[in-house]
């Protein structure tokens, strides 16, 4: 296919394809069911989606650095638990918030240190902490009933109102903007991309690979802690299995947003758009009376379709580049794509 250069460049920019797709899906749902875009409905489903979007961003940062963090779901659940526990024990709102965020931080640090100091595979370490955090939440809920007490300030974290928009939106928007700035505009963010693209080359170039990797897990932990606080604030009660399975929705959202599982490619906005896409699909199906048991099937199909679509776009963009470099030798572009897409079909030519 022949693509204008500017268009192919824009489409190959991380986040643009998924944003377009998201708008299309919203339009389609609005046509099918006009109640889709009522303020109340939008507020509800975004409110519900925000904690998982925070996890999506955290996981996306780890993935861009070439790693994986499976623990974010249960760590968020446990953070919600410790936040509630602090409130139940009579702590003031801000102490409870700090306890929740600190819980995430501790797990992020633990993950990062096990991976960088002891050299254990990140998949294994975070699989272990997934279970540890999940187990600790069950223990906590058996010791203390994590409900019934809430301070007015605490529920305002999500349900408060500032300039007509719920506070939860503001908090999330500020965190997303900060994270995007951090990833794209700072020295540390640049190093995250470098170690994600080629850790060996980054090391030779003087990047302290382990320190950067540790940093990404700490960030992911902090975001999981923040997600836990918002979960507790929204629910007002924490049950034993809160957060279980969230990690996969978060990873799926990041991948759908074009964050490459092979590392080195992605942005915070793209990951947020990917996460929102999943939330929007669920909401659309729910409003149209589809049985919730079908949600995970749709989510799965959506991930596969999204990744294939993203690959096609990349290839088209590369193809038009190749034509531009006329006379030059053909770059082995398809092979390169193989390397950067773990979720590909693995088929060549």
């Amino acid at each position, binding site marked *: 296919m022949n693509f204008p250069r500017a268009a192919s460049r824009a489409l190959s920019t991380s986040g643009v394809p998924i944003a377009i797709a998201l708008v299309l899906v919203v339009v389609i749902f609005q046509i099918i069911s006009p109640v889709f875009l009522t303020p109340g409905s939008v507020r509800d489903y975004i409110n519900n989606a925000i904690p998982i979007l925070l996890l999506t961003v955290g996981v996306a940062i780890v993935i861009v650095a070439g790693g994986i963090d499976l623990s974010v779901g249960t760590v968020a659940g446990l953070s919600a638990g410790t936040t509630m526990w602090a409130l139940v024990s009579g702590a003031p709102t801000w102490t409870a918030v700090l306890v929740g965020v600190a819980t995430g931080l501790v797990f992020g640090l633990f993950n990062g240190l096990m991976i960088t100091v002891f050299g254990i595979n990140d998949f294994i370490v975070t699989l272990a902490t997934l279970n540890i955090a999940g187990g600790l939440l069950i223990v906590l809920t058996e010791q203390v009933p994590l409900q019934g007490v809430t301070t007015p300030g605490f529920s305002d974290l999500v349900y408060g109102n500032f300039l007509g928009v719920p506070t939860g939106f503001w908090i999330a928007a500020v965190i997303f903007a900060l994270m995007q700035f951090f990833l794209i505009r700072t*020295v540390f963010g*640049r190093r995250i*991309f470098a170690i994600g693209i080629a850790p060996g080359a980054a090391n030779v170039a003087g*990047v302290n690979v382990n320190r950067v990797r540790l940093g990404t897990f700490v960030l992911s932990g902090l975001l999981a802690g923040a997600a836990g606080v918002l979960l507790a604030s929204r629910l007002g009660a924490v049950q034993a299995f809160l957060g279980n399975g969230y990690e996969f929705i978060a990873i799926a959202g990041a991948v759908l947003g074009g964050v490459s599982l092979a590392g080195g490619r992605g942005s915070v906005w793209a990951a947020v758009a990917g996460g929102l896409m999943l939330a929007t699909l669920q909401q659309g199906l729910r409003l149209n009376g589809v049985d919730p048991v079908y949600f995970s099937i749709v989510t799965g199909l959506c991930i596969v379709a999204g990744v294939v679509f993203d690959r096609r776009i990349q290839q088209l963009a590369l193809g038009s*580049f190749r034509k531009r470099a006329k006379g030059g030798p053909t770059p*082995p572009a398809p092979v390169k794509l193989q390397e950067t897409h773990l979720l590909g079909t693995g088929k060549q030519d």
Partner: protein
Amino acid sequence: MTERPALGADGLLLNVDGISKHYEGVTALDDVGLQVRPAEIHALLGGNGAGKSTLINILSGLTLPDGGTITLSGHQLDLRRASDALGHGINTIHQELSLVPALTTLDNIFLGREVNARFLGMNVKLDRRRMEERVRALAAEFGLSQEDLKLPVGEFGALKKRVVEIVKALAFDTRLLILDEPTSGLEEEERLNLFEHMRRLREKGVSLIWVTHHLEELYGLADSATVFRDGRRVGTVNVSDTTVDDLLGMMFGIAAGEFGSTSSAPALAEVEVESREEVLRLTDVNRSYVLRDISLTVRQGEILGIAGLAGAGRTELARAIMGIDKISSGTVHWNGNPVKFSGSSAAYRKGLAMLPEDRKQLGILPELSVSENISISSLDRVSRLGFVLKSRDEVSQAESYRQRLGIKTADVREKIRNLSGGNQQKAIVARCLNTNPDLLIFDEPTQGIDVSAKVEVHNLIREFVANGGAAIVIASEIGELVELSHRVVIMKKGRLVGSVDNVPHALVSGQFEAVKNRILAMSAGRTES
């Protein structure tokens, strides 16, 4: 199995003709040929980057050539994937062993070509008994017992693993066996043992293409040798008619003397190195099995060349100096103070920088732009408080390097993977220079780049030391080393085995060839005459 005529009309088993291969602006093979007779051991020689590996990959169906023909026994082959080569009886034993350590010898031999017991027309299970019957005699011939067939190959030593690969190849109608440095990692006795196996293969009528860096090994074993240099075939000779020196000359282009003419030796000779400040001193540095008792110094304004064959430990030494690999004993002094670099970032902070050998894997960050590749080692120079990046400064910094070093790209914001090899290399040089280092290590700085870029990179190195920097240059091309260096040390098997001081003076007095030959002799491991 299909019937094949024994040989082509020309009496050759394999005839490779006019093969070329280009990678993103780099010529790996340029119109090369290779003729292998039946039942001969044919050595394939050449320095790093000569194109041997590319040709082997083409013959094993792993790489598609840009053009040319491959004829086996008079039949033209179309090798599109590994199975095509195997199907025609071309087997390759790669340097990195391709055995599965956890599987038994027998399962490894039949991996992908298993014999199954059948029931009701379906494969139901592996028929290990029949597989064993098929290879038992062959295995015994190469010293593998019935017990060995049942053991996981992970338990075997390097030699036995190679023997398993040989048996694996022979079990399936092999006519041409390609051995890529089969003696690497083998002890002396094991080598001799392997050579026996190679002779036995020849007696069985199998032809061998043998890649090696150890020229002494050829005598009494190889029949003929083809030498490659810079992607071209230099020539094919009868091993019995040539000396090691002849072959070295062909491999590194000594006879051609192509570097003597452009030498800027007089300029370098003016440098009185001895009086300069010592920048780096290594004392008895060891790294288990890789580096042994290395002691050396590098002074300000000096280029120290490190010569040696592949596997001599040159890159390992560079990595140890940079703190990328840990040293197990010995001391490093930096500007007179003992130091221990915990990692590359510590070394960079102290004023060291390194241009790595493997540009594709360890040099460029392919998905980042040229300007981002230049700034990655010195981000504090283009950021506020070492935190927030100033993109405009980053781009203008890259722009100034683009003009100074002549990096050919339309825009420094272009991804670096879209540049040619030589321009990528210049960008990496820019990256190193931008850290403002006191010592810069160049590991094969001109590998895989064309002649004009080579000259430019050489000039950059000279300019760097002329401005007070110190450099270590590692290069396989001895002529290049002699021309660049003030002093050359020679490594072999992880040790320093000799040195040539005052190289510029020798060049001025017209001893270019003599110096090269001394270095070559020491690298190849013979005593200095």
